[in-house]
């Protein structure tokens, strides 16, 4: 069992997303610790990319702020190396294919292993292209997370059967960002996933309130929240860790 599965072992999981380096890496470190201390079961760390085509304006903004501040892949590896002395819950990277490809797949993924990252989410690497990194991920025991979207339909079973770590269920059409309502028939999607794999599934995109998180965790095995946390960081900057911690606690209480 990969460490990621452990995140789902104690009931419904709450999974926060944080863009590394927004507003700076010290704040990121404090926010990650606040998340872990307040009940996060797994943390998604975003490595910023200049052209984040799957993101809405909020996370795009975080990416560009972080890059402007001089964050690089190597600095983020150092951040994780240090964090791993204190933070023991599973963590995965969320970034774009070119960040991994350009660094060198072998070099990137072996470093993930070395510093204690458990998985990799690449929104621009669909099922058809996963061979690009899959063998290397297997070699170093890093789970390559699959995404399933509202438009996946006949593809759900195929993707689920080969899923590892957890299945990332995209709640809505479009890009990341908070939504007042999620209309997709997620229960039907989750049903097909569960018929094809025992890997847990978590729902993300558009979730911001405890009510939404409770509802999504009721359908799946966990809820992922990104933009709502980035907004707290945007609002409070270096003072954000305490506020993020409170928010994570309220969300974890809601999904429990």
């Amino acid at each position: 069992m990969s460490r990621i599965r452990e995140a789902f072992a104690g009931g419904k999981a709450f999974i926060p997303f944080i863009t590394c380096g927004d507003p700076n890496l010290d704040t990121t470190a404090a926010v990650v610790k606040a998340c872990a201390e307040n009940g996060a079961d797994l943390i998604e760390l975003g490595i910023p990319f200049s052209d984040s085509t799957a993101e809405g304006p909020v996370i795009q903004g975080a990416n560009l702020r972080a890059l402007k501040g001089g964050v690089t892949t190597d600095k983020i590896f150092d951040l994780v190396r240090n964090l791993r002395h204190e933070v023991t819950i599973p963590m995965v990277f969320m970034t774009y294919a070119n960040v991994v490809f350009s660094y060198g797949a072998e070099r990137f993924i072996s470093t993930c292993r070395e510093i204690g990252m458990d998985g990799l989410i690449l929104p621009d690497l669909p099922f058809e292209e996963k061979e690009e990194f899959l063998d290397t991920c297997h070699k170093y025991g890093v789970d390559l997370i699959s995404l399933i979207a509202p438009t996946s339909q006949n593809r759900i079973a195929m993707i689920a059967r080969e899923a590892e770590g957890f299945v990332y269920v995209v709640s809505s059409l479009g890009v990341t960002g908070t939504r007042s309502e999620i209309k997709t028939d997620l229960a039907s999607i989750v049903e097909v996933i569960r018929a094809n794999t025992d890997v847990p599934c978590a729902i993300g995109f558009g979730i911001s309130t405890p009510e939404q998180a409770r509802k999504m965790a009721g359908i799946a095995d966990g809820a992922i929240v990104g933009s709502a946390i980035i907004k707290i960081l945007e609002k409070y900057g270096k003072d954000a860790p305490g506020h993020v911690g409170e928010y994570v606690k309220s969300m974890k209480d809601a999904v429990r």
Partner: protein
Amino acid sequence: MTNVNGRFGIHGGQYIPETLMNAVIELEEAYNHYKDDPEFNRELTELFNEYAGRPSRLYYAAKMTKDLGGAKIYLKREDLNHTGAHKINNVLGQALLAKKMGKTRLIAETGAGQHGVATATAAALMGMECVVFMGEEDTIRQALNVYRMRLLGAEVVPVKSGTATLKDAVSEAMREWTSRIDDTHYCLGSVMGPHPFPTIVRDFQAVISREIKEQLKEKEDRLPDAVIACVGGGSNAIGSFYHFIGDESVRLIGCEAAGRGIDTFETAATINTGRLGIFHGMKSYFCQDEYGQIAPVYSISAGLDYPGIGPEHAHLHDIGRAQYVAITDDEAVNAFEYLAKTEGIIPAIESAHAVAYAMKIAPEMNKDQIIVITISGRGDKDCAAIARYRGEDIHE
């Protein structure tokens, strides 16, 4: 030369969000169904001939030939097409295909505005809704084209993210497509993006090289020695090259925008300064930093101001079948003025990059050799910007 996975050698592929996968699969199936359908091809040919004004002329540039004193120079006049550029070839094909697929809305990205204008035109013609994404920087550089698109009934969305140029317009169009797929076709403007776009766009643009071959056969009863075209994403270039790829004696030359020079950061010359990467749905060469962050690129030409190149060009470069050279802003502006004064033809500043390279090599070639330059578009849109480049305070 595409294989089943949409690869050109190692390049191409489908590096896109899962949300779009069924959309590109549906597009590929529809295209495979219609591409050899006689009725589809009859309708497309009629649109090409009756609406766009094809075939475009292959014009013997006698004065330019005499002045340069070397190879005979022919100009493939894509600038004479309806809407003033080669972009209409691809757009009519994709709009017709989208209509057959039951789509009622076209979205597109645009750099110089030529592809946006062409898409807005096809949408007006076929009674479809149209939204064009254009970098805010480009809406300022090409204000007249913004007005033309609106006049044609399209909505123009200025894109403020990133560098506010062509790459950001592509990203924003992709984001829009993930939010609305059922009724919307993304009418991609170049031979880039995920499979099947590089193949579809190439096939619709290949009419350029098919005509060049026929027209030159009639005029000279032979093949050209060189075909020269400008390359941003590379659609007019692949269209100009395609039917000559098997003719090894024909040199295929793509002209990239060097901007202020390939030894500066203000360049958009992808083959000359970029390296292998994955972006905008494809594996190809991209201008990027050591961590894979896409570089801000620069060219005086909004249409060549893109940090990547189509995967088939990347492959033609790898196997040495085509050559990619870099042309600076200065060289392109000189060629823009030269063609205007010598032949009375004002080329798009994009096409002027191809003219500039022909001016370099023609004098060194024999008088019995033949160069074909694709004039991909007309230069009216660029006059104010070139005047400003020369220090004149002209605004549209």
